[in-house]
Structure formats: structure tokens, C-alpha cells
């Protein structure tokens, strides 16, 4: 049984750190995506512009991955989690708190970025429901991946966790076909790209914005629910809250 107040309180404890540091928040969630968008628009061929726009939307979501993994790493480093561990928090409530915190931090920035891209004509939304599905899936999958990544690395020191999680975030965003279509990859890496979750998240957002990545929607529709079920089961069954310590 989930205590809603508890989930809300956990989410606020984590979200307020970023929401209170307004300049830092604006930089990470809004300014950073545009500092990458503008140079890419200048140097990339015109036909890649829609992919770069979708990539910019995605970049706001990858923040969920980094935040989920770094919140846990910092908590462990500073031993802040000891206070939560000694309260009647279940692993599910803790995870839902992190998830809600990420929603509060990320989704407003994503909405701002989409609005700017839409007003400037860089993005054309043809299916709002599909766009929302893509954003929600991205938020959930990236949060849970960040969470599991750090829990897997917890025997390592703080710096290793941060380096590995940032490297994974980079691969998920810039190496996977998010800022460019799948066809630009050679044959064998293309097969590997099908296994990367961000390929499919970008594919859904792309389909909602009439940007064709070249990934059949049916594969995405099979892949993402399977991944979500698998990651959720791992989080809820295999990992104990005290593993964070």
C-alpha cells in the first residue's frame, strides 16, 4: 500500500533543491538544450533540422536519468539517506518519490522547450496524444534507468558513479539515433541501436512531430512496454532501499 503523503514528501525533498536554485535550474533544463541546438542547426544539413529539434526535446528528458542517478549518489555520499532509511518508507514509495520529483523538475522545462520550438517553427506537432505518451514514457524509462544504474554502481565511489552515469547519459543522447535518423548508422550499429531505449523514445516523439526516424512503430510498441515491465520488476523486487546506503 502506497502512502501518497509519503511519496509527495520524498519528491519535495528532492525537487526543492533544484527548484530553489532557479538559475541552475534554468541553465540545466532550458539553456543547455538551446546551447546545443543552435550550433547544431548552424553546422548540420537542413534535412536534419527536425531531428535536432526532437533531440532538443529529448535532451530535457535525459535530465531524469542524470537526476535519478545523482540524487542517490549524493544522498549516499552525504549519508542523507540514513534519515529516510530509518523511517517507514518502502522501496516502492521511495522510487515513486524520485519519479514524482523528476516530473516536477523536468516536465515544466520540457513544456517550455517544446513551446519555443513550436513557436519558432522548428517542430510541428501532428499528434499531441502520441507526444504526451513519448514524454511520459521517456520520463519514466529514463528515471528508472538512472535509478538502477546508480544502485548497480553503489559499491563504487561517488566520482565513479557520476562519471559512469554521465557517460551513459551521453551515449543515450548523442550516440544513439536521437539527433539524427537511424539510416545514418552503418548496418551493424543500426541493429544495436534498436536495443537502446532512447532510439524508441525519440521515435515516438518523432512520430508525434512528423519526423521519421526509420524505426517501425510496431517494434517500439513491443520494445518499450517490455522494457518498462522489466525495469519496474527489477526495481521493486530485486533492490532493497538499504542498498543505497
Amino acid at each position: 500500500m502506497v502512502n501518497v503523503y509519503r511519496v509527495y514528501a520524498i519528491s519535495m525533498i528532492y525537487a526543492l533543491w533544484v527548484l530553489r536554485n532557479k538559475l541552475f535550474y534554468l541553465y540545466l533544463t532550458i539553456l543547455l538544450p538551446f546551447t546545443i541546438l543552435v550550433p547544431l542547426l548552424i553546422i548540420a544539413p537542413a534535412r536534419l533540422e527536425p531531428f535536432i529539434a526532437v533531440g532538443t526535446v529529448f535532451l530535457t528528458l535525459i535530465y531524469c536519468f542524470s537526476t535519478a542517478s545523482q540524487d542517490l549518489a549524493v544522498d549516499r555520499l552525504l549519508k542523507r539517506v540514513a534519515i529516510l532509511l530509518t523511517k517507514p518508507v518502502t522501496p516502492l514509495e521511495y522510487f515513486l518519490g524520485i519519479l514524482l520529483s523528476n516530473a516536477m523538475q523536468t516536465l515544466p522545462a520540457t513544456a517550455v522547450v517544446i513551446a519555443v520550438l513550436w513557436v519558432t517553427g522548428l517542430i510541428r506537432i501532428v499528434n499531441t496524444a502520441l507526444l504526451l505518451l513519448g514524454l511520459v514514457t521517456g520520463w519514466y524509462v529514463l528515471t528508472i534507468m538512472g535509478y538502477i544504474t546508480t544502485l548497480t554502481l553503489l559499491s563504487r565511489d561517488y566520482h565513479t558513479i557520476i562519471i559512469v552515469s554521465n557517460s551513459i547519459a551521453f551515449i543515450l543522447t548523442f550516440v544513439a539515433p536521437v539527433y539524427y535518423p537511424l539510416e545514418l548508422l552503418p548496418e551493424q550499429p543500426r541493429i544495436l541501436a534498436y536495443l537502446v531505449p532512447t532510439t524508441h523514445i525519440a521515435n515516438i516523439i518523432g512520430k508525434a512531430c512528423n519526423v521519421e526516424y526509420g524505426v517501425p512503430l510496431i517494434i517500439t510498441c513491443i520494445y518499450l512496454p517490455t522494457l518498462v515491465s522489466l525495469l519496474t520488476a527489477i526495481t521493486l523486487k530485486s533492490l532493497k532501499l538499504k542498498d543505497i546506503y
Partner: protein
Amino acid sequence: MVEIRCEDLWKIYASGTVALRGVSFTLVDEPLVILAGPNGSGKTTLVRIIDGEISPSRGFVSINGLSPDDARARGLFGVMPQEAMLHEYLSVREYLYYLALIRGLNRYEAKREVSRVIDDFMLQDYASTRIEHLSGGLKRRVLLAQAFLGSPEILLLDEPTVGLDPEMRVKLWDVVMRYAREHSSMFILVTHYIDEVRDIASRVLLLYRGQLVFNGEPRELLSKIGYKYRVQVRLREPKALETPPLRLHHRSGDVVEFYVIDDGELVKLLNYLACVRDS
């Protein structure tokens, strides 16, 4: 009823350090337990195992028959860890409020509880201040206050008076005793300042190099590990000294024997005896 049962607890860290070596004891409705021992004796490890923060390498703990991993068991605890950073960007009131919600209180109860602990720990002037702007001692007070949220049945306080000023130390023991009376809570105190609480403790657990070397009443401990002075007083009047100044004493007929820990206590005792004699 509150029962804490530890059976053959061993803790061997990944570094190879053996923190606990077969510790076993049972505590049933003890009002105030002192967990003592020199640095590195395993006190904090034992507390962390009891409150479910870490698992033992061997052995088991049960809290009213529940594993410490069970959220219901953790719901019985209020814990002040020895070292833990707070979420410093929150104000004192916000932080305590969110922790009260996490403790399982509803919004109304949480607000009431926060006001109460803010009063109890003299944090009124800092309630709206961000924790990052507080001094070290005040942060310790916040850490202490959060343990008392929701009137837990078991309070585990690891070195609670370290970093507190003398006034706050006295206040802390007042709060502890009041809680013990009002809520029938069990207190487990990890402390180096045994002299501050030995008169009010019901049991002492003494750890040495990971082993439990003593489990009994404070007076037994003193008689085993020694005391600085033993003062025998023979009474002419049997009703004299009905309320002796030291709790650690033994009365046998017209003889009262006091176990005196230090010079200060000896002076206090002699002054008292002089007053009684003169009156």
C-alpha cells in the same frame, strides 16, 4: 510492549573489519538503555543493524517479532544517526514537516508535531531559517528533533549530546524523561557521557571490540568495572538518607554504601552528608 531481540549478530564489512562478534541480547520494555563502549567497539554498527539501515553478516534482529527491513518495524523507530547531513536547502520547519509526512502522519498531524518538536528543542527562532545557515550545534538539534516526530515507540539516539551546549544537554534529558513517561517509549542511547544518564538508565550494554561484555544495571556495571570511591555511611537514625543524592547506592540495614565515580560527585556527597548531619 516493545521487544528488541538480537541473536548472534556478526558484522564483517567488505574491508574485512569485524565490527560485531556474536552479539546477543533481548530488551523488553526497558525505559532507557545505554549502549556504551570505546571508539570502534561496534556501537554505531549495532544501532544501524537494529534500525534496519544495514544487514548483519550473520545472526538476526527482530523488533516485536518483525524484521527491521519491514516498514512496520521501522515505523516504531525514531532515529538520530551519529552522522548524517540534512537536506540543507530546506528550512527547519519544511524539513521537519516533510519528514513527519514520511513518518506516516497526515498534514494536520504533521504540522502539529513539527510545532511541538520545534518548541521542545528550542528551535522557534530558527524555524524559517534554511538549514544551511544554521550552526553545527543547531543542525544537531534539528537532527535530534526529527527523531522525536510522531512519538515513536523506540528512540535510537547515537551520541545525541555531542555538539550541544550544556543548556541543551540538560533540556535533552528532560525531554527524554518526559517522553519515556508520557509515551512509554524505549530509549537506546549511544553515549560517551555515561555520567549524564547513569542515574536514569535502566540498563547498560557495554561493547568492547565488537563483543557484548556487559548487559545489566548501571550499578552492577560500576561494581564490575570499578569506581573511584566507595563511601560507607552508618546511620544512627534509620530514616535518615531516605532520598540520597546518588542513585548508585546500596542500603543494608543501617549501612548505606555509595559508589562514587569522580571527585565532583564525592564533594557533592560529602556536602549533602554534612547538611544531613547538621540538621
